[in-house]
């Protein structure tokens, strides 16, 4: 089979819908948090309404959707806020998820692009996630839609296309590796004193509290700096695990080694620790929450189900029941 036909066949693969559903729920909550906290802080009009109507900045006509709706007036902006929060709720509940993701995406872009001074990379990552949810049938299970269709919240027989999840994995790899390749500061790269994280923690803009108390732990921040830099620039190696797992059952050499190492685990563990540390020590908005939502997609639904079974058996002190096989996908092959 030529490479194009191989690709076409690969993209026809399906899998149980649980992982994409969990991603949908997590991103729906991130939408509610990203916009809801602006409402609660009383910042909707100061940040997103034009100066003529009470905002602090000249915003012009705004991005295409806002311009089309009539410009950044209070009525238009509050309408977008309401639509975004409503679609975030529908996305979390899982009803009309593709449409809800599309509305949330346009709402998030419309609002956050209004005033680019008042945002960060998390707005772009949230938009990336919502577009991938437009492409995914993420409400096939763990959703109100599933409940209405089958009478149950979950549908173990539901199968969805695998490729949206693969694009979610790619997005995560791109975020980390791209930021890693751009960390060329002398404070980050080998040859310096690896003091980047120490000095970043001292920046008043992002710290939660004054961080001078961390001085005795400076060597730890140096270690964390070196590890973070290595971890980010080497993150594409995670893709190698996916390559290895797609090979024949009886693999040899590199493939076998990569399967045994399963780089997803150490990379996810380090990333989770880093994001939890960031959450505790700094306020950089919902970036950590959105990024951690992508971590779910590193695992095939069968793997997550297996972990769930083990946790349940551990909690009830009973040996885990044997796993029922997933119903076969369209190509008969569970995806990587």
């Amino acid at each position, binding site marked *: 089979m030529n490479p194009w036909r191989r690709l076409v066949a690969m993209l026809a693969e399906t899998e149980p819908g649980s992982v994409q559903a969990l991603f949908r729920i997590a991103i729906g909550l991130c939408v509610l948090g990203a916009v809801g906290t602006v409402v609660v802080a009383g910042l909707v009009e100061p940040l997103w309404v034009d100066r003529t109507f009470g905002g602090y900045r*000249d915003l012009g006509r705004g991005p295409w959707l806002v311009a089309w709706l009539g410009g950044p007036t209070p009525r238009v902006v509050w309408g977008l806020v309401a639509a975004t929060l409503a679609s975030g709720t529908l996305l979390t509940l899982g009803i009309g998820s593709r449409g809800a993701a599309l509305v949330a995406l346009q709402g998030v872009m419309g609002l956050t692009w209004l005033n680019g*001074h008042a945002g960060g990379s998390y707005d772009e990552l949230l938009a990336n996630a919502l577009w991938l949810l437009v492409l995914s049938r993420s409400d096939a299970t763990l959703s109100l839609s599933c409940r209405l269709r089958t009478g149950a919240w979950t549908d173990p027989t539901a199968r969805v296309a695998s490729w949206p999840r693969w694009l979610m994995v790619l997005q995560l790899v791109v975020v980390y590796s791209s930021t890693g390749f751009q960390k060329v500061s002398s404070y*980050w790269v080998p040859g310096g004193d690896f003091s980047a994280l120490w000095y970043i923690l001292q*920046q008043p803009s*992002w710290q939660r509290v004054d961080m001078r108390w961390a001085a005795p732990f400076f060597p730890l921040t140096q270690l964390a700096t070196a590890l973070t830099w290595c971890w980010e620039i080497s993150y594409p190696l995670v893709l190698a695990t996916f390559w290895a797992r797609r090979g024949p059952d009886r693999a040899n050499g590199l493939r076998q080694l990569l399967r045994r190492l399963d780089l997803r685990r150490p990379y996810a563990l380090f990333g989770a620790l880093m994001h939890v540390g960031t959450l505790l020590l700094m306020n950089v908005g919902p970036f950590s929450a959105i990024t951690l939502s992508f971590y779910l997609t590193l695992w095939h639904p069968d793997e997550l189900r297996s972990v769930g079974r083990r946790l349940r058996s551990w909690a009830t002190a009973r040996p885990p029941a044997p796993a029922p096989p997933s119903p076969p996908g369209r190509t008969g092959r569970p995806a990587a």
Partner: protein
Amino acid sequence: MTDAATAEPARVPSPAPQGLRAHLRAAFVVFHVAAVLLAAMPAPDGGMKRAAWKDRTVQEEFAAWTGRLQGLGVEIEQPELEERLWTLAVAWQGGRQQLLRPFQPYYQYAGAWQSWRMFVAPHRYPGRLHIDLRRGGTWETIYVARDPDRGWLGRQLDHDRMRSVIFRYAWPQYGRAWRHWCAWVAAQAATDFPDADAIRLRYWKARTPSPDEARSGAEPPGQWIRTRTLALPDGTPLHEPEPDGADPADNGDDGDDDGDDDAAEVP
């Protein structure tokens, strides 16, 4: 652990799908992956401002890299390195824009844009926002970033989106936006403090402390920048004498630039 335990379950051979839809899907995925990878290529983007390159944090980076290159036997001085990097960055940006042009509608309508310059370098000379109020002829400080005892308007000013705003406006390329932001803060103060007759907003720009300085409690030297003093309640600019330690070249009234959305690196 055996191979079989770590690999995916065995494949059931099946013919590749032949329908037009399957081919269109593959074409779309290729297009999406290309759009994402090309946009994620490292780029200085909004950092292409000469004024921003003159900031002490950026200048220290140039100095550090000049030293390293000289240590490796490369004969180069800092101004030459800076000029070469500027030329290279301009060329790179131009080529990148050409490459990305066909994908622009996709980025704009599908939210697929990629920009991941997060904490690419620590800001060694950040600004800490201070807000002072004048009542009965006496100045009192009502807000200092991250000071729990001086937190007027903290619910709004400490929100992550307002932190991004405040972080950016300490940079010189946001003159007009900074002035408008100060006017908005003055309007809030006029409501909350009807007995005040002036408000002053400024940044204390100081080098972040080294671990040794933090241990000893030493405060690195700094200077006031971007000072704006406004009459209350109407917000008219006042020309107050510069406070001690102020940078006379940076009075918060420079430039009429609103600043690019992406000009300062924000996580």
